[in-house]
């Protein structure tokens, strides 16, 4: 995904860009509203991350301007203000959602997905042979047979299916499925991988392979790469 991060604190911005890049996203950074306007005039983004308190203006006014100009890019506001009263007005001003600093990136991911789904951009259908994974509906279809997956199961499958052949260690899978602070047992990933294997057992096109001592990967059973 292409993010535009609008944040005046350079150190914070750098850390956020770095973190989001780990997930494979492209993140541009604007340090103030003027820079943001410049970016938005020339490039397209999937989502804006907007700090509401900026040196050259209130993020709310920026939001209002965007909406008036019919710019529909979804916006998630990063706010430090804790008062409920402040948060309520953000949604009124045109934000799609907000998240408080310090940001939990698992939560940010979940909110981004929810926002994009609402905007109709959530459809992310992966087709691998006879396996169709629909992340918006959280379903796995093998031929005409459809199963609904739980959120975490879906995440495991999605991570593996997006890069067939690539090996993910347990830790790496863990980081992509669970939030940093979620109290999960050490073998939780094993449990979820097991469930996903059951869900796609009927597929003739893909299989999840255990790479002993390393981790897991999804492999194509048919000839396609």
């Amino acid at each position, binding site marked *: 995904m292409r993010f535009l991060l609008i944040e005046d604190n350079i150190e914070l911005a750098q850390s956020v860009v770095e973190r989001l890049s780990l997930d494979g996203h492209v993140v541009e950074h604007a340090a103030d509203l003027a820079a943001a306007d410049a970016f938005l005039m020339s490039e397209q983004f999937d989502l804006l991350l907007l700090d509401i308190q900026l040196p050259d203006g209130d993020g709310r006014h920026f939001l209002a301007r965007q909406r008036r100009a019919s710019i529909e890019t979804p916006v998630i506001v990063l706010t430090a203000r804790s008062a*409920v009263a402040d948060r309520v007005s953000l949604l009124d001003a045109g934000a799609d959602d907000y998240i408080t600093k310090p940001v939990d990136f698992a939560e940010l991911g979940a909110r981004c997905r929810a926002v994009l789904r609402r905007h109709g951009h959530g459809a992310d259908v992966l087709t691998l042979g006879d396996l169709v994974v629909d992340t918006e509906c959280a379903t796995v279809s093998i031929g005409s047979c459809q199963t609904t997956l739980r*959120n975490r199961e879906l995440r495991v499958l999605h991570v593996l299916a997006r890069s067939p052949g690539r090996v993910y260690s347990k830790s790496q899978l863990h980081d992509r499925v669970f939030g940093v602070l979620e109290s999960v047992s050490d073998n939780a990933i094993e449990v979820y991988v097991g469930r996903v294997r059951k869900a796609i057992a009927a597929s003739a096109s893909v299989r999840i392979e255990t790479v002993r001592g390393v981790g897991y990967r999804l492999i194509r059973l048919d000839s396609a790469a």
Partner: protein
Amino acid sequence: MSTVPARLKAPSVARRLLIALMAIAALLSGLLYVAVRASSNEVAESTHDGLLAASAEAIAEGLQADDGALVVDIPYGALAMLGAVSDDSVFYRVIADGDTLTGYAELLPPEQAPNPAETVFYSSVHQGQPVRVAALSRRVAIDGRTVPAEVLVAQTRYGQEAIVSAAARRAALIGIGAFALAGVLCAYAVRRAFAPLRRVAGSVERRGPADLRPLREPLPRELEPLGNALDRFMARLDATLERTETLIAEAAHHVRTPLAIVRTRAETAMRRSEDPEMRRTMRELVRAVDASARSADQLLEHAMVGHRSERMALERLDIGRLTDEVVERFRPLAEMRDVEFDCRIERGLDVTGDRVQLETALRNLIDNAVKYSPAETRIDVTTTRRAGDAVVHIRDRGRGLGGESPLDLSQRYIRGSNVDDVVGSGLGLAIVEQVVNAHDGQVVLSPAEDRGTSVELSLPAA
């Protein structure tokens, strides 16, 4: 709630006024008594004197010349008329030319002989008894000369004294009666005069803790300076509270940015590492950062709610809709762990309250439910009407209250013994209680059937 320090009490104004008025009434009643008594004494005495005079005149009529000498023929009625009034003894003496013609010789004449035209009255003593005497003089012509004659008529004073005592008693009764009546009227008048004061005091006392609006009661002129000072004070307090809220919001901002930097870097470091030791350390770092942020958060929220209860912005709102909005806010978080919300919201369930406070309370409760719910469990949220109350019920299937009494949990900073691994500061329930108290409602925590916690928030329906 802070208690008002004991103040030195000045005596009640109303009481001082009443005492002063009663003293005046007593004085006037006393004067009234004295006046009535003196007046009745005077009347009694002049009546008696008049009788004595009439008697003396009657006797004087009987003075005549007989054979070159002065004789007196005392008509019966002259003395009888004195007996009609009382049983007092009567004495008389007729003096002709210096000699007692008839009567009691020891009866003392007046110091100065009266003029023929007038009757004099004086008090004297006769036979050891106090008497009142009327004396007149006449000149009777006998054989070409005029003979001076005096007639004295005296009567003892016992009857008179009886009348005087009776009059004194009557005067006393009048005085006391007047005082009592004055007392009652004064008390009533004072009460009425101070009624505006009581109204103002009552209206100030009835003000809710939230009310910083200027006084609306009409003020008597004497209270105007006080009323104006009070209004100015409340305006200053209002401004201070508003500044404090702004300060609180700014503090939040300043605290969170450095925390955000640390957390983000820790998450990144964890992601990049396969080393379990490093990963554990980073996780602990993140946990610590979150705990700080949450503490700051709730402290600020607590303070904000505390201030807001001094200035609540009341409106009529649909509590079901508000609950729904809060649930929506937490859905992505819940979804992350496959925690589902089962919501049964009754529409049109209105309450009167401060939206910000109520939302804060609901957020704290639902946040708790999500935080302590294990993965793949359900949280039931219902809003219903029950006997004039709007009731919000939240039930999770988490670890429950851990044996702590729900009362303890809502004291600041006390957390259950079973939640050490979940980040929280322990202020959440205290905040909810504060909001609920400000809204005249109730919050009840109890262990749910099977497992988990059940929270019931009830507010009076609008």
